[in-house]
């Protein structure tokens, strides 16, 4: 089995760790070897959370610069910041709804222009799928389901050796019962959005 390397970047509180745990469970169900690692030093205090997921026979649990097959960014500026993990063959998926870093609010630093950001990522990678995942989460009836929307988009790309059924089954096992319907809806909306992306 070919090794596939996925990086997920998010801001603390966006549900990155739950997304990884769903993917991990889906891999277990699919019989795909999975190893992952996360750096969540001070996630609760607004920092960046980065997860690396390695599918296939590799031993390593981390991913070097330039070696991600897929990058999923839950926040556009964080997607841009993680561009060093990509190469010309990487597929990138990003939410386009910004979460302003506090530094910008107090006047240290300028938030990147979203059009320019997409142009840059497009130029340097194989494919960019970019849409407002927060809006779709809201449409699904759960503003916190940005993670599930992006999971839907990720599975749509077909880069990972996981099927829709595996992921849905994993969502049943790993997400709270009360949110399952809205999470599944969010997943579908993300899947469809990625299908429409050019």
């Amino acid at each position, binding site marked *: 089995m070919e090794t596939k390397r996925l990086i997920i970047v998010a*801001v*603390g509180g966006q549900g990155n760790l739950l997304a*990884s*745990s769903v993917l*991990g*469970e889906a891999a*277990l169900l699919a019989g795909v*070897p*999975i*190893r*992952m*690692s*996360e*750096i*969540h*030093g*001070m996630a*609760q*205090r*607004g*920092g*960046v959370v980065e997860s690396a997921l390695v599918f296939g026979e*590799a*031993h*390593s*649990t*981390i*991913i*070097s*610069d*330039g*070696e991600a097959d897929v990058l999923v960014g839950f926040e556009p*500026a*964080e997607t*841009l*910041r993680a*561009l*060093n993990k*990509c*190469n*010309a063959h990487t597929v990138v998926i990003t939410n386009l709804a910004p979460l*302003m*870093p*506090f*530094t*910008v*609010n*107090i006047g*240290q*630093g*300028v*938030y*990147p222009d979203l059009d*320019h950001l997409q142009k*840059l990522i497009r130029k*340097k*990678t194989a494919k960019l799928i970019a849409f407002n995942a927060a809006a779709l989460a809201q449409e699904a009836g759960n503003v916190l389901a940005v993670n599930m929307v992006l999971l839907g988009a990720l599975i749509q790309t077909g880069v990972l050796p996981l099927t829709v059924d595996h992921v849905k089954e994993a969502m049943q096992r790993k997400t709270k019962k009360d949110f399952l319907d809205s999470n599944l809806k969010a997943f579908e909306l993300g899947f469809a959005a990625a299908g429409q992306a050019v």
Partner: protein
Amino acid sequence: MHKLLTDNPGQKVLLLGNEAIARGAIEAGVAFASTYPGTPSSEISLNFFQIARESDLYFEYSTNEKVALEVAAAAANSGVRTMCVMKHVGLNVAADALMTLAYVGVKGGLVVLTADDPLMFSSQNEQDNRFYAKLSGLPMVEPSSVEEAKNLVPYAFDLSEKLQEPVLFRTTTRINHSTGTVTLGPIRERITRGDFKNDPLNLVPVPAVARKLHVRLLKNYDTARGLAEKSEYNFTTGKGPWGIICNGVSYNYVADAIQDLQIEDQVRVLRIGFSHPLPAALIKDFLQGSEKVLMVEEGEPYMEEAVKALAQEEGLTLPIKGKGEGLFSRLYEYNPAQVRQTIARYFGLAYTPATLPDLTDVPQVPQRPPTLCAGCSHRATFYEVRRAAEGMETIFPTDIGCYTLGLLPPLSAADFLICMGSSVGTSGGFSKVTNKKVIAFIGDSTFFHSGIPGLINGVFNNHEFTLVILDNGTTAMTGHQPHPGVDMQQLNLDGYGQVSIEAIVRAIGVPHITVVKPYKVQKSIAAIKEALQFKGVSVIISQETCTLYAKGLKLPQRKAFHVSAKCKDHRECIDTLACPAFYTWEDRVKIDPNLCTGCAVCAQICPENAILPVKSKKSVPA
């Protein structure tokens, strides 16, 4: 039932490294566990804490790592299987106990887990704790993966009982915080009651006894080396004239690199998982069969130096390299590409690394540093202390906890830090040799951990400083673990005592003590001003529950605030408090009602009184 108690051998589950280690301990029949929380080890003890609530496992959060190890030493000397968990720098605190416990030994298995943090994701240094094994003479084991971590714990317990001494279990962050598939094993029965046999001539190391015990330690060392030679955790793979010796997570990067470079037939790998004492004969044998050897180990050249010495003993002159120009660094953690590239370079293989994207035209992405939570009481206290100290030249020795984040502007309330408790001790030194006003910050848990001796010292030696104890009722930074000052009833836990910080400070004889509520801004500033004027040691106890913890406890919430039309855009609030609930929109200051906790600190400092409670949001007034 707790998921780590699942009694279903053979089942495959995905576990975080720290969960796998806790599970390994459960499978080994661990009956007693102690810790002082510290990232990256914290989830191990969190799982023990949870398991202890529904089983007969005894677990405690001890005051500090030294106490944790002493408690554990007694349990293990009474024949009970015991685990003691800490982060790497915690072992510095426990080192005094460890060094002589190595002489005294144990009866029941004792595994001391030390979690190292290469690259310092959440630590103040990246010391390599393999040297503690060398220093103490105790055996050390190190897993390379999550799966192996689980299996290695029962092995370490057996080893400890065989040798009748503690075994050090070293991890690095990438073991603790990686997730992998683990196959559950059978759970050994927990034996929770032991017996202590009085045997002072072996257990009280007065010089005459200690001299005898050191002989035994060295004998154990030889026995341990024999076991390391045959250990399944020290193994060789592959074939060919080249050699790589590695340990821990580096082994994974080596294994992947060999596959990627397709050199399976050219290189043999010696993976060391039982790393002290090093298996000398095995290593010599490996060197004999190699033309050229590369050492791949994060951190210090611990194995490299030993391997070179072994080669010298054998009169071998083959090249052995690891750390150095163009090869590996003693800094930070390794990664797969770096290891692949270094292997290719060292063995002269053609290799083109992945082309990194050209990022020269990418604009600087604004930083997103971790910051004190919205409504964190530390922010209020820092602001008040700065206001009270206006016009004074100050030094702010700080300590280890969320409040270390007060380092960043605009709070800028941290000038010096070395270790847990150092705020207090260093204050005394600064006050003796400088003319600046010394104001130290320490959290409640850190005060219990190691702040008290420094305070006693300050009173006795007549130092002159103000110590601000930031008492937020929990060990916030590492995930809200309890400490001796916590009211355990709040967690619905019976059978605990509670120690009052104020009573301790009074008993020490601190001449000037003030308790403030940091959400009351003017009152606090006035009280702090007075304390700063005091000649001698003064203590301010700033009491307010950690807001994140309060949320978790579902304590009544305060009303959120908003910026009303009265705002004249001074930006006093955002510029001096920098609370993350603020944002600017169309050039006006706003408050995110979902983040605001209603602490009202900004409302009290706004010169226009423009910040008012939100009317509509339903909430219980505090």
